């Protein structure tokens, strides 16, 4: 195996608060290879954003206890000086968010902002940077890019702003693009445009992508590998086929059974009972145990580890593999 682009080892991010310690990320390990797309799914509050904000060095270390390693091209990002981290951010790792206005400044012209980003990292003339900015806007499919470059973000529609943010994030040709719910606020038609764009730019530049979303459809269509997060932990990882056709963890089953499908007509949905836990009071043992229909005594006392199922596929559950294989056949894949 080639050296991974990003390797996260036993990452923990805990926020001490008045009410107690929020264990937002609690022992997460994964790797991303150059050029591949990793999907990260899970419900709100499961620690998806905090994990990747930590990778980017965007978590305030004064308000959080951060442990573990974040190796990017072999260098531990948790222990590099601030200036060096800033150079890596933008230059080698780009990030896009649900709300483009977190990256775009409302008072500056879109083209100038992209040019600024380039100038901060590359020794070229202002004019060259301006031309590169226009070229990036063109590549992300913004019509009349030279005109658009001279406009302010508020003159752009939601989808166009998202494109401008992508143009900015990719202007330095990063090796890794972190996309945190980039299409959650958009209509499906615009979402399809944006995801299609990310796919195309990714193959053009061979950028690795971490796509964070709560939409199981989006990851199925766009990701090579998927990791499912629950209560600050990874509960299942695998290829898209593993997760959709051979899921081996009751939370993943719950997610798959609760979504209505366009491709079938189900009589009734099967919601997961109860609510996700507070990350201050994560249940003892398996964090999913209060909601799991298959819970047994061991689940209350021992935290299940992410154990290999087959190849890259791994899941964290105390049920025997044989039992899980049977349940998947009888209860999960039989939806209609």
């Amino acid at each position: 195996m080639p050296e991974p682009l990003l390797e996260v080892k036993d990452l923990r991010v805990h926020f001490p608060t008045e009410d107690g310690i929020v264990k937002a990320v609690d022992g997460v390990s994964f790797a991303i290879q150059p050029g591949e797309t990793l999907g990260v799914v899970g419900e709100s509050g499961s620690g998806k954003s905090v994990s990747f904000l930590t990778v980017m060095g965007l978590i305030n270390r004064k308000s959080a206890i951060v442990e573990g390693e974040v190796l990017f091209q072999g260098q531990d990002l948790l222990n590099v000086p601030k200036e060096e981290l800033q150079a890596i951010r933008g230059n080698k790792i780009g990030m896009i968010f649900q709300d483009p206005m977190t990256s775009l400044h409302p008072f500056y012209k879109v083209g100038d902002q992209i040019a600024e980003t380039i100038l901060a990292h590359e020794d070229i003339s202002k004019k060259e940077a301006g031309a590169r900015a226009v070229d990036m806007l063109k590549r992300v499919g913004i019509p009349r890019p030279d005109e658009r470059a001279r406009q302010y973000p508020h003159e752009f529609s939601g989808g166009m702003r998202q494109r401008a943010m992508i143009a900015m994030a990719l202007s330095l040709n990063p090796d890794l693009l972190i996309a945190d719910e980039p299409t959650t606020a958009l209509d499906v038609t615009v979402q399809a445009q944006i995801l299609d764009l990310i796919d195309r730019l990714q193959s053009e530049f061979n950028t690795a992508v971490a796509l964070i979303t709560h939409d199981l459809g989006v990851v199925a269509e766009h990701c090579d590998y998927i990791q499912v997060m629950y209560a600050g932990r990874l509960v299942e990882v695998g290829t898209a086929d593993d997760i959709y056709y051979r899921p081996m963890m009751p939370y993943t089953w719950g997610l798959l059974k609760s979504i209505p499908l366009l491709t079938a007509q189900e009589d009734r949905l099967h919601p997961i009972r109860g609510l996700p836990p507070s990350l201050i009071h994560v249940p003892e043992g398996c964090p999913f145990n209060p909601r799991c229909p298959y819970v047994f005594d061991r689940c209350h006392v021992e935290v299940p580890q992410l154990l290999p199922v087959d190849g890259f596929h791994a899941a964290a559950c105390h049920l025997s593999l044989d039992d899980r294989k049977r349940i998947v056949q009888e209860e999960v894949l039989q939806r209609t």
Partner: protein
Amino acid sequence: MSTTETLATPPPAKPTVEPLVRLEGVKKHFPITRGIIFQRKVGAVHAVDGVDLEIFPGETLGLVGETGCGKSTLARVVMRLHNLTEGKLWFNGRDVSNVKGRELRDLRRDMQMVFQDPYASLNPRKTVGSIIGAPFRLHGTVPKNRVKGEVQELMELVGLNPEHYNRYPHEFSGGQRQRIGVARSLALRPKLIVCDEPVSALDVSIQAQILNLLEDLQNEFHLTYLFIAHDLSVVKHVSDRVSVMYLGKIVETAERDSLYAQPRHPYTGALMSAVPVPDPKLAKAKRRIILEGDVPSPIDPPSGCRFHPRCPRTQALAKEQGLTDEHGAPLRFVPRCHDEEPFLTDQGPGHTAACHFPLDVRIIPMDIDPEETGAPP
């Protein structure tokens, strides 16, 4: 149900029952004015621009379309929260387009609304008991000393703990707050409930809980739903019939199975194609249509068919015919789509679409043989 079956079985005969809600040529325009003291009207947002629609008793009519196409405005018109700019609205056989005062208040007992953001629609300073009980007090349908009992019964019905009567909205999770909204809407035993994106803000596992609840309540109380959502999978799950809206107009209406098996309007097809399918192999089998550009402004909607500037169908036809403009550049539409407005025409039993060149393809693969998908049998 297999696909061939869907197409071969004759769909149920057109219902002979009277619709509970009927809209005819309904328009809702919002004037745009200039000037501070002497306001001049300089234009209008054509939010709803000529809608004919029927909703039958006991059914769920799904309404889908992109943001800004007029779904919420249409919902508010049906609720008579907006006055109609033009057209007629019937409820239960009665023309209610212009009812006012007491009559309007009486009408409102029969129709209630559930909103997307359960938090914004609940007064944070009122207890849950007083929020759910408000309609009783407003309409005086239940004597004061029985309100608490009735409210607790409603709470139980929607899956809330009746002992939480005195709690405040912020003490509940998003899903529970939506249950509060549903309980309040049920208080006066309405005939119609308009659900405007009721699950759009919820996580999937919670969304499923609320969808099941709405389904159970419909069965128990013979409710009629107008169910608005932008998620076509959710709409498919809940609806008996579905209407698709684009820029203030209904472009297609059909029985659920008929619509999803054979969308006729190119916009419906594009919308369906854009839905991410949570199954890697079926996703690959899906017909991909990527719409270009954004929705045009409802202030000055395009001529002819409003969808023509983005329509992949008319683009393909123009290309096939090698059409060019006066400068010799390839045309992106055929003239008919640009010049002539298409009206809703029959596309099969209970199926209408407004398109000069309706589609004849399947977009979404359904019930593909497990062998074929490679999924474990």
